[in-house]
């Protein structure tokens, strides 16, 4: 187990480094942010001054060396746009994305397990059909389209919910609802499939032959086995959400990590982009760790 975690950590670190190098150089190739931050009629002198201030006048390799040196000292540089430490800007955005992801994923997991299981018990019944329709929508409908249609209906026509922002709990309903659809559709199918497999398994037959009560058969014998493949998918979906829901955050004006990342790239605020990548990578690594632990708790065959 520890060996596995170690291997994971090394693999994550390596891919993080690769990503950092790639993004560092690629993003600098897009040009420097000077022209975006200074007025068009700014003098050459002002431009040079701006470049010197942010260290943009040095050769790329020197910039990179300096970045790595600072990184070793836990300094991720400042955001040009906000004139504050990049890490603060990123963590602030994360403080929005994390609860959004947490709330959405909790709802998704709870709903998917309940409805997926019900669908498996009554194949072809109401819940089965509901699950397959939602899955189909989740896989087919573009989230940006659902989002704007939802705004038109619920915010503009009916006036029930705010269009964007984060002020009140009401602001959370639409983003969560739109984010919910795709992972729910995916996970509910996996739950249904693995629950069906578990219910027709031989050990369930044994439990019936033992005279175990039906409720115990479903929730103790079948569910724990059925959760094994589900956990992996939950992990993948949660990881995707930690990357930030760019489209949804943009449309609903939700100040999360996805929106921050896009804005920072478009405005060439490189330090923020790099800091965001690092924080995301760490978050995803921790999440995978959690998934691995959950997996080994559920399945003794992994432990031995």
């Amino acid at each position, binding site marked *: 187990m520890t060996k596995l975690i170690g291997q994971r950590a090394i693999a994550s670190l390596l891919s993080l480094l690769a990503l950092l190098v790639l993004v560092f150089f690629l993003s600098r190739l897009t040009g420097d942010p000077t022209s975006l931050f200074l007025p068009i009629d700014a003098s050459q002198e002002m431009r040079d001054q701006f470049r010197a201030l942010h260290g943009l006048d040095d050769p790329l390799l020197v910039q990179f060396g300096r970045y790595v040196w600072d990184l070793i000292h836990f300094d991720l540089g400042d955001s040009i746009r906000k004139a504050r430490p990049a890490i603060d800007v990123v963590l602030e955005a994360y403080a929005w994305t994390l609860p959004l992801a947490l709330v959405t994923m909790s709802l998704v997991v709870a709903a998917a397990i309940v409805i997926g299981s019900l669908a498996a018990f009554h194949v072809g019944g109401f819940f089965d059909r509901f699950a397959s329709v939602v899955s*189909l929508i989740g*896989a087919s*409908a*573009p989230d*940006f389209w659902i989002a704007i249609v939802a705004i038109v209906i619920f915010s503009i026509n009916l006036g029930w919910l705010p269009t964007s922002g984060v002020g009140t709990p009401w602001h959370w309903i639409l983003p969560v609802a739109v984010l919910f659809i795709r992972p729910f559709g995916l996970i509910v199918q996996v739950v249904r499939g693995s629950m069906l497999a578990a219910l027709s398994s031989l050990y369930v037959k044994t439990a019936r032959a033992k005279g175990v009560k039906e409720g115990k058969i479903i929730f103790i014998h079948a569910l724990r086995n059925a959760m094994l493949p589900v956990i992996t998918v939950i992990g993948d979906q949660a990881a995707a959400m930690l990357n930030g829901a760019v489209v949804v955050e943009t449309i609903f004006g939700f100040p999360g990590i996805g929106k921050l990342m896009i804005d920072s*790239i478009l405005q060439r605020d490189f330090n923020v982009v790099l800091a965001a990548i690092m924080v995301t990578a760490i978050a995803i690594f921790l999440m995978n760790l959690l998934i691995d632990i959950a997996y080994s708790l559920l399945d003794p065959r992994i432990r031995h």
Partner: protein
Amino acid sequence: MANIQASAPMTEAPGRERLLALPRMLWRDKFAFASAVVLLVVLLCAIFGPALLGDVASSQNLRGRNSPPFDLARGWLYVLGGDSLGRPMLARVIVAARNTMMVAAGAVASALLVGTALGLIAGYRGKNTSQVIMRLGDVIMSFPSLLIAVVVLYILGSSVANMILVLAITRVPIYMRTTRAEVMEIRERMFVQAAIAMGASPGRVILRHILPVVAPTLITIATLDFAFVMLAESALSFLGIGIQPPEITWGLMVSQGRPYLTSAWWLAFWPGLAIILTTLSLNLLSNWMRIAFDPAQRWRLEARSSGNG
């Protein structure tokens, strides 16, 4: 089991018969058949649309600005209404099919080709080659794909070719992993061992025994993936980092219609509907393929009409 087998009709299905069996099975599943028809229409739009309607779709008509749909006074091209510059929506939706389809088809085809090749190598070769290829896949998978897309498109500029490149890169690992996993499993199957014992070369084993077994799975995934890539392209274009005007795709059209949501809903609605219809069809067709290509499940589709089921 023996008597179940015996009572099953012994269908002779050699050569041409077998080729005809698939369309016949498609006809029996109405949803899948309708999906195939929708996709065919989209394909025809993508191929012939720009040549037939390209000029109409880009000619501005200030009197037709935001003209409402279902009004035939301006001619049938305005049946879906006009956009903010008075261009007919129907023509624009048809013309936009080309870029949308080209990006998705290009990305899926290249990802499928590269991913399958790498997966075959990783699955059939020794441990080291396999490790290198798989780690590469892990690295790509661990990148936030939208982020890669944004960065690359920002640097290279957003053209159709670059969109294909970016989306293909992010999808390669899917095919690679599936192929490798399947190859590793099929390689151990007895019929492959039998072929090797008979002296079959690796090329023959891969082409004659492994690929035909993997292919249906891959085609099914590719169909599903086509929908996914279309959605990704739409999202990128919607965010303004994908295809740039005056080129159009459905995603871009939704984005362009967004400011007019309250006054002229049809600007964003029709292209969105086009996306949904296409992706829905792809998903339904992929579900059908999963059953149709599986010899163990195919009878479900065959039995439905033969009346003895």
